């Protein structure tokens, strides 16, 4: 039985720099990195030292409290730097990539013939496991859990996001192998949610062993949290796992070739990119290798690994995140605006119609990183509700987090949300409240309380 979900609340931001559906091969990566800070819920324990040589698929660090979860190198090469922060917190491990990658050998097998334990073992050993995330808390899935369902959002509805129909085109076989593996992990259903507004690629619609649901509507319709909420909401004590389509390809390649092949297709997008398009590259690639000669160097630019709503500002010398399939380059703000709050504002994007940009509804914006105001207390009401398609009261939940009332957070639905679901709330907020970091803080508090 398939579900149809129609999302009404939300907004598709129209921005300059949509990637053209052209696939190019990126420059050979010089260095790649793994950032332990990306893996929420994990306490990293290094198993390599500076100067060690690793193969693609060799362990780099493990989770201190669950040593089965390993994090492996995407390339073969030499560990050249281990960056630490305050209290020796592990920040980043940088690996100098060989020109030709050498792979660790994992066994080739058909996941259909394997047991749950065998599939799990293969994923954990190869370092693919961390792609599997869990709700609640939006952290790396715990292999000792039995999830009630696994959710896959086949499309990304965020601004300028890669089009998975294009990215996965022609890879139905590998995708199906990956899905077969995933189906072993739960006794519940595996939900593959496709976009209802357009006809999705056959890679998705021909998938077997999964329930295909159609999702209609604007962003955040593609957020897996929104989809879970409407299809099978998470109650206290339940666990749902989520994974992205390209990660399923990685799983498929593992079982078909016995290699941890960390290559991925990344959309290079945004107004500061000369020719926005797709690049075949590798997990953890250095941004300067990826966007070399393809960005407008004259303007101060923010280099974001991920999309403009949830990505992280890594800079030109930073590295692509483990969970990111997109790089967005937008102009950096920072200029004062004389009576900016009084000006007609033909160029200002706003969900409200307080700026005269409402005269041009189909305008593509070139937005910079300006906050456009100062932080204030909650004043306006009903704003978040316009872009938050869940049966959760966002402001009440945020306030319960601010006062750290765990019981209230539970009652108001903290188990169903992740920071990314609140990203649009943060964008439209008149009071410039850092909504996503508040939600993250709330999840951390509740997680601590639960453990």
């Amino acid at each position, binding site marked *: 039985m398939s579900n149809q979900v129609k999302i009404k609340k939300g907004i598709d931001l129209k921005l300059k720099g949509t990637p053209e559906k052209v696939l190019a091969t990126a420059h050979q990566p010089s260095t790649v990195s793994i950032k332990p800070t990306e893996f929420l819920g994990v306490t990293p324990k290094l198993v390599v030292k500076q100067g060690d040589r690793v193969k693609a698929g060799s362990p780099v660090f493990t989770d201190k409290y669950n040593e089965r979860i390993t994090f492996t190198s995407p390339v073969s090469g030499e560990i050249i730097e281990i960056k630490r922060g305050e209290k020796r917190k592990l920040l980043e491990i940088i690996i100098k990539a060989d020109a030709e990658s050498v792979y660790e050998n994992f066994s080739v097998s058909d996941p259909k013939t394997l047991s749950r334990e065998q599939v799990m073992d293969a994923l954990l050993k190869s370092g693919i496991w961390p792609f599997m995330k869990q709700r609640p808390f939006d952290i790396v899935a715990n292999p000792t859990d039995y999830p009630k369902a696994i959710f896959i959002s086949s499309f990304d509805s965020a601004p300028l996001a890669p089009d998975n129909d294009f990215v996965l085109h022609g890879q139905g076989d590998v995708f199906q192998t990956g899905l077969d593996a995933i189906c072993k992990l739960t006794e519940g259903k595996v939900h593959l949610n496709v976009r209802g507004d357009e006809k999705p690629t056959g890679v998705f619609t021909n998938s077997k062993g999964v329930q295909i649901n159609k999702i209609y509507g604007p962003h955040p319709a593609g957020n897996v949290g929104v989809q879970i909420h409407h299809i099978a909401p998470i*109650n*206290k004590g339940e666990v749902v796992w989520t994974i992205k389509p390209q990660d399923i390809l990685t799983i498929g390649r593992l079982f078909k070739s016995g290699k941890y092949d960390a290559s991925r297709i990344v959309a290079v997008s945004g107004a500061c990119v000369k020719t926005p398009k797709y690049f075949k590259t590798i997990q953890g690639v250095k941004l300067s290798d990826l966007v070399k000669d393809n960005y407008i160097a004259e303007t101060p630019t*923010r280099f974001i690994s991920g999309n*403009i*709503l*949830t990505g992280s*500002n890594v800079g030109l010398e930073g590295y692509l995140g483990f969970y990111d399939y997109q790089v*967005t380059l*937008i102009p950096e*703000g*920072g200029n*004062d*605006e*004389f*009576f*900016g*709050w*009084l000006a007609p504002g033909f160029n*200002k*994007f*706003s*969900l*409200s*119609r*307080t*700026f005269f*940009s409402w005269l041009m509804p189909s305008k593509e914006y070139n*937005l*910079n*990183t*300006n*906050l*456009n*105001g*100062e932080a*204030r*207390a909650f*004043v*306006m*009401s*009903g704003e978040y*509700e316009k872009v938050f398609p869940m049966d959760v*009261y966002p*402001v*009440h939940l945020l306030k319960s987090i601010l006062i750290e009332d765990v019981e209230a957070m539970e*009652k108001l*639905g903290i188990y169903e949300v992740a*920071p990314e679901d609140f*990203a*649009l709330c*943060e*964008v*439209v*907020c*008149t*009071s*410039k409240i*850092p909504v*996503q*970091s508040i939600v993250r803080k709330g999840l951390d508090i509740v997680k601590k309380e639960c453990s």
Partner: protein
Amino acid sequence: MKPLRSILNSIKPHFEKGGKLEKFWPVYDGFETFLFVPGHTTHSGAHIRDGIDLKRVMITVVFAMIPALLFGMWNTGYQHYLAQGITDSTHMQNFLFGLVKVMPIVVISYAVGLGVEFLFCIIKKHTINEGFLVSGMLIPLALPADIPLWMVAVATVFAVVIGKEVFGGTGMNILNVALTARAFLFFAYPTMMSGNAVWHADTAFSGKVDAVTGATALGDAASKMPIEEFTSKYSILDSFIGTIPGSIGETSTLACLIGAAILLYTGVASWRVMLSVFAGGYVMGFIFNLFGVNTLMQISPLQHLFLGGFAFGAVFMATDPVTAAQTNTGKYIYGFFVGFFAILIRVFNPAYPEGVMMAILFMNVMAPLIDHYVVQANVSRRLKRVNIKA
């Protein structure tokens, strides 16, 4: 704007930490951010943000009030000359007379209110909030033109301190600030704020009260003027356009509706609240019509919505996002009862012809309770989901 920027930059060090005028940082910051939207960039979360900020919201509301203000000025003059028996005054004369009467009230309201805000910000080391931009305009519009300026000042101080700052400033208050000012005057100086004289500028104190016109329409109705006489004196059209006596900004339902159109189109005010206030008022007016035992009950429900401060309250005060209900469902309930009680109080307690003010303040207090039950319904939906499974 470089010269201005460089002046600001040159005096900035004095106000920063360690500077001579460090204490006055909120004042400097207030001016700087008033002149220039600061170029702060995003550090966490989403990298781009909506162009809107609280200043933009507030200035939009102020713009929406301008039709009511301009009409109020004209009407102040018009009513003045009418009371004097002069019927052939030009529009310009009317307007200029009103301008001279009303401007000082606006200036006093802003000056005193912002003064108090600055003082509190300095003491509490907060940044200055925009909230008073709107309150400062709402207060004069809710007052009669002939009010002594010192009363405006006292009421503004009371409203800002007791209505807002004691709760923690903009966003934290329970009662609408402007209505707090209005209610304060109403209870502190009842003789000034009600009765027949006050509604005509320059008549109350000059002793030239004309017998032809006296109280407001509601005052007349409350003093049992027969309905036939009432409707001939205050036609529906007059009360819609606003050529009747009353507080400066409240008489013209038309001007309020222009404001409403701006607020709703820009998305600043909640249509849920506004619509349900009018609906609630109409329903109550209709119920009274069925009984119709006195003039106030006989007034048609539609005209009830045009009289007194009903439209003004519905458009500009009930929609205050801080003091109204916060949930979408709650907004319908809150709005409906504002309208319902406004007419109820107006009719049953003629000592308070301004039922709208009381109704909004009462519902301001009730709004958190309404929200509580709306949110509880959501909580129990969530709990039920678990119980069904178990």
